[in-house]
């Protein structure tokens, strides 16, 4: 089967603005964005959510950012960056379609440049510029922006019923939501506008403050860097509008009713602290996760009556009691933490995924997680 998005995509700028979720749009591909602290099983959960949809007969695609190698192998995306890969279903496993993409931020950015360049020569010049490579590799938020760009591209293709996107472990929850606006903001930045002024005459005409800034940057980073940057922004001229427009469309998709958010967390205190911080940041931005997935929960085993504990304390069964008490303590603490996220998001659907016997790195393991995400 061919990857659906490898087909040429028409220029969205010249198309009428229906926008995702807009009245003119018939594209009803829904989107789930998985957010959460690092190390809580976000990637696995994202893949399991896609698998859940495939089981329900839907065409689902998961966009992974940085999967563990064995999970990437299981999904068949290891070393196959950036294009959707069809994950064949084992006999009878799921009636729908499961696709997986491993995001390659660099090629996504390169494609974007190719799309908006006014001529092939412009794209070539930009791709060869060292400052462009720095931007695409090092600018804070680029990975987030490209994840959204990829999401938008897949959504626009109409080839899926559901796209689940894993997010990079961001220090700021809002890095992801705000990513589309980030580049646009950067292009509006005064210093950048200055750098984009192509001629010396232009430079002279600038206010003294701006010139001081330019000198300061040159003093920090060396004159060559400033020269390279000016050259890059000169080459970039004429493309900002396309970038800006596309960023605005991607942002509309994120804000539309087609998109929902899943908070993935673990019931450990530190992790919950980060998750709740994230929830508060999202709330400030008008976003409420509709789904909460709590991974690796210990089961709460029934307590023993105190007299039984006393009677068995001096027998060889003591280690069994000690174990029960320790695991109950973990479960009780976890329940307290779970209570916090329920209080913060009372309307969300909560899924508790138990501590599974082994790490999840294959389709059977994903199926086990998906079982716990069933409605």
């Amino acid at each position, binding site marked *: 089967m061919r990857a659906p998005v490898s087909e040429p995509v028409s220029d969205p700028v010249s198309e009428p603005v229906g926008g995702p979720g807009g009245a003119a749009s018939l594209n009803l591909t829904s989107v789930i964005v998985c957010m959460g602290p690092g190390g809580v099983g976000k990637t696995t959960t994202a893949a399991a959510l896609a698998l859940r949809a495939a089981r329900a007969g839907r065409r689902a695609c998961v966009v992974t950012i940085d999967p563990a190698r064995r999970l990437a192998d299981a999904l068949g995306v290891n070393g196959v960056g950036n294009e959707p890969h069809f994950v064949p279903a084992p006999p009878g496993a799921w009636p729908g379609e499961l696709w997986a993409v491993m995001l390659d931020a660099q090629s996504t950015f390169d494609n974007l440049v190719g799309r908006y360049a006014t001529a092939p020569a412009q794209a070539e010049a930009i791709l060869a510029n060292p400052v462009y490579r720095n931007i695409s590799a090092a600018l804070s938020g680029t990975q987030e922006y490209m994840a959204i760009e990829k999401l938008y591209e897949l959504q626009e293709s109409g080839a899926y019923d559901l796209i689940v996107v894993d997010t990079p472990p961001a220090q700021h929850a809002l890095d992801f939501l705000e990513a589309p606006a980030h580049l646009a903001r950067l292009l509006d930045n005064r210093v950048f506008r200055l750098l984009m002024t192509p001629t010396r005459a232009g430079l002279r005409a600038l206010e003294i403050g701006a010139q001081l800034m330019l000198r300061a940057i040159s003093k920090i980073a060396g004159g060559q860097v400033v020269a390279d940057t000016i050259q890059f922004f000169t080459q970039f001229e004429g493309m900002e509008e396309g970038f800006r427009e596309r960023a605005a469309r991607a942002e509309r998709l994120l804000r539309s009713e087609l998109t929902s958010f899943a908070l993935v967390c673990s019931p450990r205190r530190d992790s919950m602290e980060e998750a709740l911080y994230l929830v508060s940041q999202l709330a400030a931005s008008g976003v409420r996760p509709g789904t909460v997935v709590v991974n690796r929960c210990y089961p709460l085993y029934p307590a023993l009556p105190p007299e*039984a504990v006393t*009677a068995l304390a001096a027998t060889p069964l003591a280690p069994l009691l000690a*174990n029960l008490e320790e695991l109950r303590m973990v479960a009780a603490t976890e329940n307290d933490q779970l209570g916090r996220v329920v209080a913060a998001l009372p309307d969300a659907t909560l899924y508790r995924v138990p501590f599974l016997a082994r790490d999840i790195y294959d389709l059977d393991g994903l199926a086990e997680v998906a079982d716990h995400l069933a409605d």
Partner: protein
Amino acid sequence: MRSTTLFSAARVLIVTGKGGTGKTTVSGVLANLAAREGLRAMVFQIGAPGARYEPGTVQLARLFGSDEVLGYEASVLVANAAGGSVHARAVTPDTALVEYLHLHGMRRLSRRLVSSGALDVVATAVPGMPDMLVLGKLKQMERAAAAGQPEAPDVILLDAPAAGHAVRFLQSPRGLLEAAGGGPVRAQAEEVVQMLSDPQRCRVVLVTTPEETPVSETVETAQLLERRAGVSLLAVVVNGRLPVLSLPSEPEVAGLDALTRAAGVRLGRQQLEGLVAAARLRLERQEVQAAQVVRLGRELALPQLELPFCFDADLRPQQLATLTDALSTAVAAGLEVAP
């Protein structure tokens, strides 16, 4: 072997590991152990630009029983009779840039440059610049200590980004050397690279949990850190090891029922099943952990320092003391530092 050996290897210890394995806690425990040895320890955290609240800094302060919000200025978390102390500070690329500009004669412009988004511009033009600014600040602190400046820390613990990001973070000064033509940034990058690649000055402590994926990623990260960032590794902390209980190897309900009755106790079906299921889970986890510790030893030739799993998940001074005891014992038992 005294645990000062751990701290005499190098003044700067970079603590990193897969997300969720306990980097921040381990940084705090290492600092606390150093303080017990009468050393001044500084935990150096990295904040995101413009952040008002960092879960990591709150977590570190709470470990020491403090509600203080850590910021650019160092806070004292512990000061003991032995003359040891734990300090902490959170440095962001923004604050590091302001200080850098001050030091390079651009005091008047510095605030304005940062608020106007110049950091974005600099970060765009110069790859890895924000990371470099933070590492530059770390290096400056290390140099002050090496020069015997009073109040300078004996031990600096960098609570570094999570594993994959740590490689990129520590690699950034090298990348910068390749890309940046000249200027003070280049000089700064050279000095940071010198520090990172000198095992007498700087070592990495990896943190993992004894589970399959974290162990695999730790082994990969270790190789990448050595190869790409040129840092030397010191030890790997195996965090969250379940204390081994001697449970019956194949617990089952009927046998347990008989044994409890023999002791004069009658348990209900659910209670018996709970006991059996709990024992099975523990045995399974113990087995997985033991196997992963062995695999880690086989695939990564580094001293292993084990810290126990804390069943009461709220990490406060009491747990800090327990973990510090455990680290002290582990260091005495097993750490041999290559010269």
